[in-house]
């Protein structure tokens, strides 16, 4: 995430007059994004609100968000990286062949119009969703879009931000970056953190059968992962912490019910623009919080002999107690 050209949603709300949603469906997945942060807000710099802002939606199919957009660009599935690369070339005036543009499902006139609008904008913002980051190309697509945002700053102010789902998934990135230096896909098996998505990322690890125990918290891979990964979770001892008995709990050796975050458990959660928000739980749960349970598991493991021959326990990240 280092070097990402981004801003907070507050800045978007105050200043962004040109907003692109790429591979996301905020109307259904982030229902208040339009009204709270982007197109519908009036501000000192954009007093007429919606009339002062232009919204572009780039997606492979016409979702409900298309109704809110001024311009809807329907591209061919799997051609996101190609289109971003074409845009990066064209903004700098480099030649691109008609066939190459046609391959993305758009015409040259449409692409030229988009570039003219991007360059005319005072403050452009690109939000990218899982339609970009979870399709062919994956993190290379996100990297290309972040490059495009950075390069647009030669002409005008431009930023990019991922549309994160799943509550505090942003917090997971931030905490892991803070504690280990890497955002995800980490191995501690040499006693210090190493980062290598593809080798240490969960789906790959499970499908290859590399791990011999799994600790699952705040996720339900039994409902979302490919079958070979679920089969491996059922083969090995799996431990699940969740407010509900989930699909994964049913194949797990140990399930512990915990209090739902923000409803019955206090703490902090990160917004998609990496702003930490305090939680205000309304209810008192009969179950313990995730934090308490993981801390107690940590303490129980610390009481056991360590697996190195000399019994030493190198600790990179000291949080016990």
């Amino acid at each position: 995430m280092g070097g990402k050209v981004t801003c907070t949603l507050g800045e978007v709300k105050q200043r962004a007059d040109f907003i692109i949603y790429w591979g996301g469906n905020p109307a259904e997945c982030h229902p208040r994004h339009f009204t709270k942060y982007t197109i519908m807000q009036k501000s000192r710099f954009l007093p007429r609100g919606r009339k002062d802002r232009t919204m572009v939606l780039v997606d492979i199919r016409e979702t409900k968000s298309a109704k809110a957009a001024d311009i809807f660009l329907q591209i061919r599935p799997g051609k996101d990286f190609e289109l971003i690369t074409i845009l990066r070339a064209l903004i700098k005036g480099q030649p691109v062949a008609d066939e190459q543009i046609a391959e993305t499902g758009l015409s040259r006139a449409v692409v030229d119009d988009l570039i003219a609008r991007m360059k005319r904008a005072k403050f452009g913002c690109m939000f990218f969703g899982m339609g970009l980051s979870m399709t062919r190309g994956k993190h290379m697509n996100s990297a290309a879009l972040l490059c495009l945002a950075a390069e647009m700053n030669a002409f005008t102010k431009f930023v990019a931000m991922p549309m994160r789902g799943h509550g505090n998934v942003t917090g997971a990135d931030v905490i892991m970056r803070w504690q280990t230096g890497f955002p995800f896909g980490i191995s501690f098996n040499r006693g210090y953190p190493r980062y290598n998505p593809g080798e240490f990322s969960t789906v790959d690890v499970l499908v290859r059968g590399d791990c011999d125990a799994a600790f699952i918290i705040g996720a339900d891979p039994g409902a979302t992962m490919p079958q070979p990964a679920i089969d491996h979770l059922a083969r090995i001892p799996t431990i699940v912490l969740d407010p509900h008995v989930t699909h994964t709990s049913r194949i797990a050796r140990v399930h512990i019910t915990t209090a739902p975050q923000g409803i019955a458990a206090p703490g902090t959660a990160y917004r998609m623009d990496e702003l930490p928000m305090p939680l205000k739980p309304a209810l008192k749960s009969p179950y313990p919080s995730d934090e308490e349970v993981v801390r107690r598991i940590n303490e129980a493991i610390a009481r056991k002999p360590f697996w190195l021959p000399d019994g030493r326990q190198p600790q990179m990240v000291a949080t016990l107690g």
Partner: protein
Amino acid sequence: MSLQVIENATCTFCGCVCDDIQLHHDDMRIHKANHACVLGTAWFLNHTAEKKYPVALVDGREATLDEAIEAAATHLHAADMPLVYGMSNTTCEAQKQCVALADQLGGLLDSHTSL
């Protein structure tokens, strides 16, 4: 019975993490979540303080919290390459404990981001 009101509560359903929700609740459940969207309303109203599930399950049988914590620690300690995964629907404080867990175990640590 009159309901208690929490102003500016935080919704953690999606990445927007709206912090302007007004919750009307009693001891058992949240009855109203003003300003929340459809997804947020469902999130707040579907979670209650009822004891719907057993505290813990070990090998499919009900167990106490202490037994389950000991069983979890034993499985994780016995493993050569344990995996710590998820961390989406939980607090930063719990996530920090998870990093310490993976570190202590010499295991793997990963979140939803890699999916």
